[in-house]
């Protein structure tokens, strides 16, 4: 199957998936017993004000009619208005998505940069001291709650050591950012050649990125180690060893043959780590999509929750498509019909 046909097929699968997710999320928020009109009008509104808002929002309509109105608007790019901030949900998501992607990109990227070689070496030195140490730290990475990890890092690196800047968001209070182009201060700073912005944005990124990398690297190490051990035990590696190939060449063979499942795993990790991003964004006042979604859920902001879930679904689908394409690049024999 050609790549273009593969993409078209994926796209066709995405549509019903998104419709289902939109319907499911809509019903889940509505059947949760919460009354959006009360949330909007405030706890001290009168019954008359409540009815007025309910009629304005169409909440007096049957549930299926409400969904149809929502869905028809969503198809045209109108995901509704957040009751918390009165802004269009789509606008909020578009501004906040790059902010989260930046954190995920650097965090998972660093996690993979550390996790893959460490995992490969742990597999090679199976049950030796390096492997035992790595397994211990990997387990630690799995067990530390993200919230706790983030706070401890702030306490140690900012409060006690003074090495990192305060957890006051993505840029220092003393730096005025350039006009937004990409919504990443780091990239915007580079584009505008504002090195004070670049330095500040980079400094602010360090702690949350390291926290994200710690959380991301633990499963990457574990999975890489397991995959590489399978490859090491394979017949072609054992034959290569018997044939007297150098250790370096064998390492290359192991790395190359492990890469496809490792990349697929990192893809699944990327989507799963959105939850971690939400917590880190909350602690570091990051202002990204994760923080937005977390607050929307806490405050019962229906339109925002629905938009957030749809954006997550779309993000996951895109990540998997990209991974499939990357796998094809690495392994041309990969079957795109699967």
């Amino acid at each position: 199957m050609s790549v273009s046909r593969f993409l078209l097929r994926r796209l066709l699968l995405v549509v019903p998936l998104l419709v289902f997710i939109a319907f499911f999320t809509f019903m889940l928020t509505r059947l949760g017993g919460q009354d959006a009109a009360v949330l909007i009008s405030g706890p001290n509104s009168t019954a008359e004000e409540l009815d007025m808002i309910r009629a304005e929002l169409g909440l007096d309509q049957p549930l299926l009619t409400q969904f149809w109105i929502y869905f028809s608007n969503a198809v045209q790019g109108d995901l509704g208005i957040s009751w918390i901030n009165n802004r269009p949900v789509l606008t909020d998501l578009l501004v906040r998505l790059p902010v989260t992607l930046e954190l995920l990109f650097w965090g998972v990227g660093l996690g993979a940069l550390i996790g893959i070689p460490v995992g490969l070496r742990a597999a090679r030195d199976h049950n030796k001291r390096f492997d035992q140490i790595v397994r211990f730290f990997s387990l630690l990475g799995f067990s530390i709650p993200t919230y706790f990890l983030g706070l401890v890092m702030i306490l140690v690196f900012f409060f006690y050591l003074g090495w990192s800047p305060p957890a006051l968001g993505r840029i220092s209070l003393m730096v005025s950012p350039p006009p937004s182009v990409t919504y990443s201060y780091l990239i915007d700073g580079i584009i505008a050649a504002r090195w004070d912005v670049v330095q500040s944005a980079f400094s602010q990124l360090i702690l949350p990125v390291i926290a994200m990398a710690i959380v991301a690297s633990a499963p990457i190490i574990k999975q890489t180690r397991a995959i590489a051990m399978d490859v090491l035990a394979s017949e072609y590696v054992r034959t290569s060893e018997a044939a007297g190939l150098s250790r370096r060449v064998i390492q290359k063979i192991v790395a190359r043959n492990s890469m496809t499942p490792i990349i697929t795993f990192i893809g699944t990790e990327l989507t799963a780590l959105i939850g971690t991003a939400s917590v880190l964004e909350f602690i570091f006042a990051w202002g990204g999509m994760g923080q937005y979604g977390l607050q929307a859920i806490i405050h019962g902001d229906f339109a925002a929750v629905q938009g957030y879930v749809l954006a997550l679904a779309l993000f996951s689908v895109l990540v998997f498509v990209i991974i499939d394409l990357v796998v094809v690049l690495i392994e041309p024999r990969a079957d795109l019909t699967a």
Partner: protein
Amino acid sequence: MQLSKLTGVLATSAAAGLLLAAAGAAPAVAKDNTLIIGAVFTPESLDGDINLPGTQNTVVQTYEGITRYGRTKNSQGEEILDSAVILPHLAESWSTSPDGKEVTFKLRRGVKGPSGNEMSADDWVWSWNKSFAQKRTGNFIARVSNVTTKAGSVEKIDDYTVKFHLDGPSSILLKALTLYTPSIYDSKITKDHATSDDPFATKWILKNTAGFGAYHMSELKPGEQAIFTANPNYFGDKPYFDRVVYRMVPSGASRLTLLRAGQVHIAENMTSQQLKELKKDPKVKVRFFPGRSVAAVRMNSKIKPFDDVRVRQAFNFATNKKTVIDTVFLGEGEPARSFVATFIDGGLSGAAPYPYNPAKAKALLAEAGYPNGLDVDLNYSDINAWEEPMAIQMQNILKASNIRVTPKRLTGSDMRARSHIKVQDIPFFTYEDGPIVLDSVYAAYLIAHGTGGVSNRTNLNVPRINELIDLARVELDQNKALAMMDELQKIWVEEAPWILTTFRAIGEAYTPKLKGFVSYPDNHERWSDLRFD
């Protein structure tokens, strides 16, 4: 590259990155005339009629009242508001017609917004008409104050004179006019943003300010920060701070760390536990102000078993309030005598009702048909940090009176929705709301009125209470109104719709060099009061 080398290089790079960041990350020191606040939210609405997270905290800085409270000193020599004294503010003076149905205000002259426009009668009329049209918070304030809630009831007499037409005399109006809403807008600016669909520019007002107060919003980055700048034409004393950075730090633990490190000057919304921890830090000042709302456990008088007043009274006798104050509020609170705080004119004084008496509680329960006690669910939410510890304490305390409580958590939004006057389907729950006007009649109307009270979440509807509130609202003789409030509160306490626990003290945590904090009934400091020592 060999794996061992690669892992070594990566580890070194990570450490180097952190050090490099450290080199460029010298903690930013704010300029001396900038106030930095660690806030839970950036203002999601700047329209006082649409009260969303962060709204009240900031709108009170940009829109000021037509009147204001006087100030006095407490026994510790600290400045506090005097609820018995009402002074002119945006108004210069006022007079009331003999029947009390017309109140005429003379506007203060020379009041200017940041644009240089002078406040005029047109601004007052436009602003009140906006609140009438929106039918939200400002409209409620108008209705409580007996102001006729329709366009034309606030009438321009001349550029500096405005007449308010009332449905009846109002004992509340002058105190209600201390509020930030209905806000007085610079209508020359707001009209520029009006459209045929939105004649009161409500969309623009949500994200911008156009007031005559000490500050105006100069930059808003939702989810990040809002920056407020001092109004250069402010009619009052020049504010000490030229600029206020209202920075969103959603995590309470992060706000605490930032305050301790001196990176923010005020940390908003600290919990009792956090305040206790901060008290030990010499680099932080923690101060408690008397609260005006009861951190109450409420009983729905229409749902069994709480439809029996003896059960409600039994629950009150079964509650050891001192234990609640000491454990949930770490000693910072005042035992509640009714829903009106003692520092508000008309609040009940003397001994707190329902002293702890498990034997009496058991006897009352037996009389009501529960000789073996009873099992109840106590719903609480995450709206206030005290609710969960309160629910746990109630479970422990009520046990001694054979009341077996199961705490059950609801989301904040669920709690708000289900406790709304139109629903009210929770039998036993924690909640806190109180008056933002320091007036016992206003508080009574809000909390105790059986048909009009929007914070009456317990379905209590006692005709005599309603009658007393309706009489007091139109009674201009303050002594008579206070006597009615005294009778009303005694009836209400006897009806016992709440377990009267405590008026929770409001804790503020800030940098010690910051001076000038005065407590307001909305629990938000005024930045124009503050200065560095």
